[in-house]
């Protein structure tokens, strides 16, 4: 059903939409999840499995400027399984409300979850065509696949293709880019750097932090390696000299070393020493408090003896 789109539109997707859709799906799924059943019947398990992958629906809104379609936000909709369509009056109400807050946003399409676009989706798609003559269908695949590198989000457009002599509307896949506003960048960065929330031990937090730095430097390393390889090739003559690139590389290399002044060394060493001293002080405090406790315990223990045996206390 999906081939590549030929409409020439460029799509820009904001992370807010992805977070909204996944939040909607997670909420519905966790609300539907019944308490652990003790039944062992296979049919019940089958029904349970189906219930564990609910489909959620909603609308996506945004702006279309020329050939660029930018999807900013989304909201949820109710799906009426009997008529196989979305709840229309609710949609209108929501649209009005959003228009008041965001006058520039239009309904660009709708979203749903699942692993692939289905035939029944075309029905909903057609229904939305009276609001937007070419709606978008954003599909989120909630299955977690650790080997997958891309986002499990696909955007489909509808195109009129002639199949077996009958013109039909089919879904075609389109490519998109992610566009972030400053606020979105901050929250996405925050989520990406989640540390283990139980506080872990100092060692696990240190290891997590160091692993982050390690991967960042590894990326830098691989890019420098590519440049190095390229220049060596140019020197050997395998690659024709491209002067503009050489100029850019030389200007880049001139920025190294980034900081080398004496003042920096002084400040850096001072801060390093301060940190070491504070750690030492903390250790000291810990040790002295443990000693104190030990002495108290000793006193408590031997105090009873001394009353009977006439010995004096330890301290």
């Amino acid at each position, binding site marked *: 059903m999906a081939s590549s789109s030929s409409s020439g539109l460029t799509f820009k997707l904001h992370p807010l939409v992805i977070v909204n859709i996944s939040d909607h799906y997670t909420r519905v799924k966790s609300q539907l999840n019944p308490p652990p059943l003790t039944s062992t019947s296979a049919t019940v398990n089958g029904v349970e499995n189906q219930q564990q992958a609910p489909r959620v629906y909603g609308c996506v809104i945004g702006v279309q400027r020329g050939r660029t379609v930018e999807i900013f936000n989304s909201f949820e909709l109710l799906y009426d399984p009997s008529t196989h369509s979305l709840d229309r009056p609710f949609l209108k109400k929501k649209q009005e409300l959003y228009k008041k807050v965001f006058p520039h946003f239009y309904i660009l399409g709708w979203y749903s979850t699942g692993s692939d676009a289905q035939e029944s989706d075309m029905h909903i798609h057609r229904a939305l065509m009276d609001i937007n003559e070419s709606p978008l269908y954003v599909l989120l695949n909630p299955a977690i696949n650790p080997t997958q590198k891309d986002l499990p989000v696909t955007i489909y457009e509808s195109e009129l293709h002639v199949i077996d002599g009958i013109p039909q509307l089919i879904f075609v896949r389109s490519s998109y880019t992610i566009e972030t506003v400053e606020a979105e960048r901050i929250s996405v960065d925050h989520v990406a750097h989640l540390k283990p929330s139980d506080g872990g031990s100092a060692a696990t937090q240190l290891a997590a932090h160091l692993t982050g730095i*390690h991967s960042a430097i590894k990326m830098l390393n691989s890019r420098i390696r590519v440049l190095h390889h390229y*220049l060596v090739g140019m020197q050997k003559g395998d690659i024709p000299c491209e002067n503009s690139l050489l100029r850019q590389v030389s*200007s880049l290399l001139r920025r190294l070393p980034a900081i080398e002044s004496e003042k920096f060394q002084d400040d850096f060493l001072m801060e390093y020493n301060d940190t070491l001293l504070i750690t030492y002080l903390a250790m000291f405090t810990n040790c002295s408090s443990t000693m104190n406790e030990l002495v108290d*315990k000793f006193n408590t*223990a031997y105090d009873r003896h001394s009353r009977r045996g006439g010995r004096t206390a330890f301290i």
Partner: protein
Amino acid sequence: MDIEQNQAELIDNFVKQASAQKGTALGSVILEATSHPSLFAFSEILAVPTVAELEGTENSVYLKVLQLFAHGTWSDYRSNCSSLPQLVPDQVLKLKQLTVLTLAETNKVLPYDELMMELDVMNVRELEDFLINECMYAGIVRGKLDQLRRCFEIQFAAGRDLRPGQLGSMIQTLSNWLGTSDNLLVSIQEKIKWADTMSELDKKHRKEVEARVEEVKKSVSVKKLQTVSRPKLSSEGSRISTLNLVE
């Protein structure tokens, strides 16, 4: 990076013009190229075969001018000004800009005195005006002017055309950079391993201590059956505190 994009069109333009003409006519092309306010790259024009042919002919001065603009500085011009044609003010300005770029190649912090000497400028005011208007607003240099310490800290400078030997040193710098970052990666991994081992050791130690405490508790509750007179708590307390003493 934007400078390169801005120049790309101009370079194409001039290369086409240069390859279309020969001999004396090239002189005017070179003049135009070296006075153009946004063009700082000349090695492409140098590479055009018709330009290279100028070597040795009576028009070789034009070739020398182009080479001067590609690799030389203002002081080179002053020392050789007998063999080179008179430069128009636009060219003088451009040569001075290129001089700043060359100076930026060696140091990140340029003292005002050195700049004034290289650029033939008498006072600080003129120097600062030149740096601000011609270099920073043109986008070829980014940095900070420190008037108190009389120096110019350069954060970014556009690249000049490469001399043939510079490629080798650039490769050297890149391999050094690679070496340093590789070492850094290795030491970070060692630190991560160290942190993990330390936490393992700590956990093991904790477990051992708890195991011994359990042992002692059990042995005490066995002994409790024998001593009836003393309350259980104090005897247990004494046992545990003696254990702490031993540890």
